[in-house]
């Protein structure tokens, strides 16, 4: 039976809706420091960093089909190098760049070993190597401060000689700096996912053999995607330093590696917006739990178990399949929306 393609209608209208939602969201985010306290800025800053971390992670997990449990390691490398730099040279751009570069370097080396395997083996390897970073941070007391971590990290002002000098120690100022970088990072990721390179990643996820038959080196592309997600983790870790002004070994622990995984699963790993929504949800859930009980780990664990048993697929895909078509139907009366099950 020849059917008009409802998917195209949906994708066109959903793009308009998504874009206007996105614009609205950015406007709100830009306005936050004007009407909210610096504490709110601080919280949203934390969420933004988790979003960046999860979105970069999803390039590896959702788009390339590789589940890493070691990205906290790269996050920690970014954070510690950035903190160390800030303690010696007061320049934030330099510190951020150093943090990201170091994280990238470490992820190339670790990636080299890990990408030889996929699936469960890959998860175990990344977990083990991530914990290697943790044990180095824990033991190398002279440089990392051991279990005390690095505290009282100074925040350098953002200076362009002769042009401007912004005090990033103020939560509001740093918030804008952070927001800009996170939006840029996400936009770059969006561009990447929709580029030929992004298609190769998805191709490898869906059928390794076919991509290999196209003459592409699977291992090379796996290493590329691993490194990119490692860079994002490093950037996220570096960006948290001016916010919390400290680095601790817990950043590298594998239980923290589970956060981006949870964010992706909560939001939906096979969508671009999934990890973004998931990161927000995860943060809100954790904050709520911490507020009501000290046993956040128990409640979060139960929530995770229920999530897997009952609520799979993530929020975003539920919205896309159920809510968005209805919204579109509401906005475009006259255009028939295919709501048959399974479409």
């Amino acid at each position, binding site marked *: 039976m020849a059917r008009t393609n409802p998917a195209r209608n949906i994708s066109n209208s959903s793009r308009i809706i998504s874009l206007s939602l996105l614009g609205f969201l950015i406007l709100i985010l830009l306005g936050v420091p004007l009407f909210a306290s610096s504490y709110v800025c601080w919280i949203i800053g934390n969420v933004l960093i988790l979003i960046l971390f999860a979105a970069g992670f999803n390039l590896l997990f959702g788009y390339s089909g590789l*589940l890493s449990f070691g990205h906290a390691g790269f996050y920690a490398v970014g954070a510690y190098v950035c903190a160390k730099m800030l303690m010696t040279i007061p320049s934030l751009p330099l510190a951020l760049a150093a943090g990201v570069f170091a994280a990238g370097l470490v992820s190339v080396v670790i990636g080299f070993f890990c990408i030889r395997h996929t699936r469960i083996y890959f998860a175990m390897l990344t977990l083990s190597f991530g914990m290697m970073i943790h044990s180095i941070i824990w033991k190398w007391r002279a440089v990392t401060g051991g279990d005390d971590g690095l505290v009282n990290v100074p925040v350098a002002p953002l200076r362009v000689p002769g042009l401007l000098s912004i005090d990033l120690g103020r939560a509001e100022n740093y918030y804008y700096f952070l927001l800009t970088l996170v939006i840029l990072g996400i936009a770059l990721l969006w561009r990447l996912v929709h580029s030929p390179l992004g298609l190769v990643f998805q191709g490898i996820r869906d059928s390794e053999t076919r991509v290999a038959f196209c003459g592409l080196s699977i291992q090379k592309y796996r290493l590329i995607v691993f490194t990119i997600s490692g860079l994002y983790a490093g950037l996220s870790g570096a960006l948290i330093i001016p916010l919390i002004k400290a680095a601790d070994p817990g950043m590298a622990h594998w239980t923290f590696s*589970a956060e981006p995984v949870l964010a992706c699963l909560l939001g939906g790993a096979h969508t671009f917006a999934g990890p973004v929504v998931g990161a927000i949800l995860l943060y809100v859930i954790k904050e709520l739990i911490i507020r009501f009980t000290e046993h956040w780990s*128990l409640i979060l664990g139960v929530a995770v178990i229920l*999530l*897997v048993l009952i609520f799979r697929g993530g929020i975003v895909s539920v919205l896309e399949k159920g809510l968005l078509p209805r919204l579109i139907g509401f906005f475009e009366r006259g255009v028939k929306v295919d709501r048959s099950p399974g479409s």
Partner: protein
Amino acid sequence: MLKGGVSLDFSTILYQGLVGLNLAMYLWLIAAGLTIAFGVLGVLNFAHGSLYMLGAYFAFSLYGAWKLNFWLAIFLAAALVGVVGLIMERFFFKYIYKLDEAYQLILTFGFVLVFSDVVKIAWGGVFTIPPLPDIFKGTVGILGRPFPVYNLFIISAGIIVAIVIWVLLERGWWGKMVRATASDREMASAMGINIATIFTSVFVFAAALAGLGGALSTPVRVVDPGVGTAVIIQAFVITVIGGLGNLKGAFVGALIVGLVSAYGILLFPGVELFLIYVIMALVLLIKPKGLLGG
């Protein structure tokens, strides 16, 4: 003479080897259960280290606080962890066998979070190590050095467990069914094997092994809520070195990690933790599927 003034004579090498062997046996008990459960059920259980921790806590209460007979306490602790495993498999794992691995791993991670808080609520506080049972008190002289009797007991217990596992899996009707299920679920099911029961019994067995390891550690090692996540990493390194899903590999891997840790402390103090990862990376380079992996 080495850095730090350690003289490396024969008795030191032997002594440190025994220390490593002792450590290896705890690791073996954890890695064995992890490997068996993975080999049959196909689920990598992040919470396996937490089961080891539960075994230690149970034994602490039974033996340390309620002063039960040592052997009875060890047996009951392992059996109780088996019951926990039964609940996990029957009510949770059962539903995830067909799911994507990511969901399986995350579900077991949920259990890690739950267990680490449950033990805080149930036991809390700082722990004292209960005294050793009388028969294990004291040391034996090995080349003129005192070596604790209990450590010798642990080494022999680990070897006995290895033999018991081998007999159970290779020589009995249960082992036959387990091996059949591991190699082809559908075929085994067609031959009249109740897969669900096999899965449950295997998981309970694996959990009890981890519980036994934890229980045996009670009189010598302090347990805290972080133990579960710490030992699972070592178990992972072991399975990567030995080969995923390979029991002999798990034994060899445990020996390597135990010995490397013991000699590492002696020769490269401070970086001994780092050393086992170097070994893991080397094994990956030379034999990506592990030393005994096919």
